[in-house]
């Protein structure tokens, strides 16, 4: 218990410098971008010099970057994420509106790729070199090599346009007035294709890691010892090999949590899912620095929480970490 608490404390303490680096880095990156929020805005509206000047003043863009950074950080210390000029709403509202969609999408896709990937990985790694192994690993690789947007488009054409099994876009039936279970089912129905597109891409990652990990473990002494002791192959696979090979996968889970948010930018665009990934893209396109910072902060918190869970899980699963008892 205390170990977990210590872990949480350490995580929180170390995230502070991380967050500072992220905020300053992101701010400077977007500051270096050609064009500001007003440039992005007047493209859609037109406008003369007076209007443009007035807008810059209204949106506070006439101040120096350092002043704006200071203002931003000061507000942030008061837990205020600021105001989005591209949405003309508080940033926290905008983000909280999109967050559940992204969490649903990412969570389901992670579950799919991790669950199915590690299962298939075990199936492949149980008999290294077999036909099943080769088929699974090469098949998943081919899937991994397909660009996400293309997979998404093809899934849409097959399953929503031709077969009409699933809706082609959106997160739920628009203005349907559904609630409760009916709404949950409706959302689940909308999520099938985007989750499949996102999840299948990462499937190969877990499958191959599992398989590679198992191949490593097969060669370790304790497995040989178990073989010598005459323990059944199935038992060896599940109890010794797979369990030990699972550890790096869990680390990967932590690592992938951030990259999946990136992957969802494209998937959210293809399937018109109003999520954080698309919002981030809109923030970049609209040069809405505070909004992008807000999204990155929120996703950073997510990543930190996920990694914390991973750390704890790792401790539980791997007897070598922390407890002091050297296993095998």
């Amino acid at each position, binding site marked *: 218990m205390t170990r977990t608490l210590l872990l949480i404390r350490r995580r929180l303490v*170390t*995230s502070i*410098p*991380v*967050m500072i*680096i*992220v905020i300053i*880095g*992101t701010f400077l*990156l*977007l500051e*270096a*971008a*050609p064009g500001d929020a007003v440039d992005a805005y007047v493209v859609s509206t037109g406008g003369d010099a007076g209007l443009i000047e007035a807008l810059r003043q209204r949106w506070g863009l006439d101040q120096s970057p350092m002043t704006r950074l200071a203002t931003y950080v000061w507000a942030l210390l008061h837990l205020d994420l600021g105001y989005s000029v591209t949405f003309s709403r508080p940033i926290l509202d905008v983000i909280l509106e999109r967050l559940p969609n992204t969490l649903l999408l990412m969570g389901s896709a992670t579950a799919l790729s991790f669950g199915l990937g590690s299962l298939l990985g075990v199936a492949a790694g149980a008999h290294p070199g077999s036909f099943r192994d*080769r088929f699974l690993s*090469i098949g998943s*690789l*081919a899937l*991994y*090599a*397909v*660009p*996400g*947007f*293309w997979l998404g*488009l*093809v899934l849409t*054409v097959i399953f929503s346009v031709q077969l009409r099994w699933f809706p082609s876009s959106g997160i739920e039936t628009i203005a349907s007035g559904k609630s409760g279970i009916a709404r949950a089912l409706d959302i689940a129905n909308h999520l099938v294709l985007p989750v499949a597109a996102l999840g299948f891409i990462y499937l190969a*990652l877990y499958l*191959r890691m599992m398989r*590679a990990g198992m*191949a*490593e473990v097969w*060669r370790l002494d304790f497995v040989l010892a178990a073989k010598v002791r005459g323990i059944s192959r199935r038992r060896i696979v599940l109890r010794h090999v797979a369990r030990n090979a699972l550890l790096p996968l869990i680390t990967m889970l932590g*690592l992938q949590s*951030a*990259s*999946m*948010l*990136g*992957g969802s*930018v*494209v998937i959210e*665009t293809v399937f018109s899912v109003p999520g954080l*990934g698309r919002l*981030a*893209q809109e923030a*970049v*396109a609209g040069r809405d620095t505070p909004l*992008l910072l807000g999204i*990155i902060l929120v*996703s*950073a918190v997510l*990543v*930190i929480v996920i990694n914390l869970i991973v750390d704890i899980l790792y401790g539980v699963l791997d007897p070598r970490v922390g407890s002091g008892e050297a296993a095998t």
Partner: protein
Amino acid sequence: MIAVHRFLRSPEGLAGAGLLLIFAILALSAPFFFPRDPLSIAGPALIGPFQDWSLPLGTDRLGRDVLAGILHGARTSLTVGIAAAAAAIAFGAIVGTLAGFAGGLMDEALMRITEAFQTVPGFLLALAFVSVVGPSLAAVVIAIALAAWTGPARVARAEVLSIRERDYVASARVAGMHPLAIAFREVLPNALPPVLALSSVIVAQAILIEAALSFLGLGDPNRVTWGGMIAEGRAVLRSAPYLSIFPGIALVLTVLGVYLAGEATVEASAVRKGIA
């Protein structure tokens, strides 16, 4: 030698190496077969494949030769993939080794920076970077490396942490070797295999990220890339599917090749390590 031997005995490795060889040859021969700019207009628009033998894979929306695009695209896609992966792995391995071996404050500082990069979703970082710098091949390569170096860094560090306690490192210390020499001569080479195991993933991802950036309109418009071809073909995915299928197949095969060859190499070298 044993490693090479081992590699050659693995059918996956051979297949992978074969695929890569084919695409490398295609890439190198592109200027020979198609000396003109592959973006130049070669004939009427939207000729289907296998209809006109001077344009065997047909033409795209503007009448550009698809085959020329695929051959020249092999050059850019492979360049992007390899350059980005090399940069990411070299940088990541150095950072990881330094952090893991030095420990203490150095480790803290480097890992915080690594974490900061990891906290920002890689694709998002690449997207923002390319938006800021403007789409060019170099920008795409740097953007992908920026997004991908943290994986190698973390893996290298974890590996170094376990290696640095091993006997041969301890004996090197006792022998009075310079810590940096130990880090880069004794530890890094042994930590490298799992890091290199990531290279296939990174090359693949680099090619895919380039495609995704093109999809969002952030590819280099002066070069043909497979990603760009797929992205352009998607508007006519239904009426002229070949426009995205041919570069798609090239992309999938290349990524497969990279993977298979990469993996066989890792396995072969793992055996070597086991024997040593």
